[in-house]
């Protein structure tokens, strides 16, 4: 198993760069196009949340994206400097629409085969995503 790590400044312009990188890695791992699309959206969501978290926390620390693949799954983790899980805020706005973050978490839950948020050493959260590699993908 090899791990590839990508560290980006916490700026929105670089989220697309991460998508390009993970798309390429996913295709190399043998994932089909629909699975690649799902993975791209999930990673983009996690990176967007990380960029916003770092901004809210006033942190210029880079966002670290790590990719590890073995024969049957891919593990991607995205580390940010979010202050706390409680900082996730309200789930709906005053007119009853889901907030962007609520929609993002729904997408992460639905698109990844496994998704969790864990505290990160040094402060912040780590978003971990697992995608299974199936024989048909």
């Amino acid at each position: 198993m090899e791990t590839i790590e990508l560290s980006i400044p916490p700026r929105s312009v670089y989220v697309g760069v991460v998508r390009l990188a993970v798309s390429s890695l996913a295709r190399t791992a043998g994932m089909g196009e629909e699975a690649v699309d799902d993975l791209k959206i999930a990673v983009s969501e996690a990176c967007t949340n990380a960029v916003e978290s770092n901004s809210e926390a006033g942190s210029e620390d880079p966002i670290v994206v790590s990719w590890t693949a073995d024969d049957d799954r891919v593990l991607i983790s995205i580390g940010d400097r979010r202050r706390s899980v409680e900082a996730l805020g309200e789930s709906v706005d005053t007119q009853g629409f889901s907030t962007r973050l609520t929609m993002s978490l729904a997408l992460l839950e639905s698109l990844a085969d496994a998704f969790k948020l864990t505290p990160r050493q040094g402060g912040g959260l780590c978003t971990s995503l697992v995608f299974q590699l199936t024989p048909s993908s």
Partner: protein
Amino acid sequence: MELGLDVRTVGTHSVVDVKGEIDVYTAPKLREKLIELVSQGSYDVVVNLEGVDFLDSTGLGVLVGALKRVKAHDGSLSLVCTQDKILKIFKITGLTKVFPIHASVEEAAGGAT
């Protein structure tokens, strides 16, 4: 990464043809265009997503924001989208119950709200 936005009029509707990827970096451009349309008095808007290669929650958030703005003027905002990978995002987040989604601009601008 550029986001292409073209605006045209079809009947009584302003149609925004979007091309490219809508994400945290490009979504503000779409937001500004939709705000501009409403400020100019265009309250019946169609957003054509057929040329969109990528859409995530920031794009959804912009569309929801635009919907609220037109609704404040008793207007409408509908979408054109036939791509399964984009429709999937609306389904997962429940927004297929919020936005009318059509198969063509002609259908969207045909008066359905």
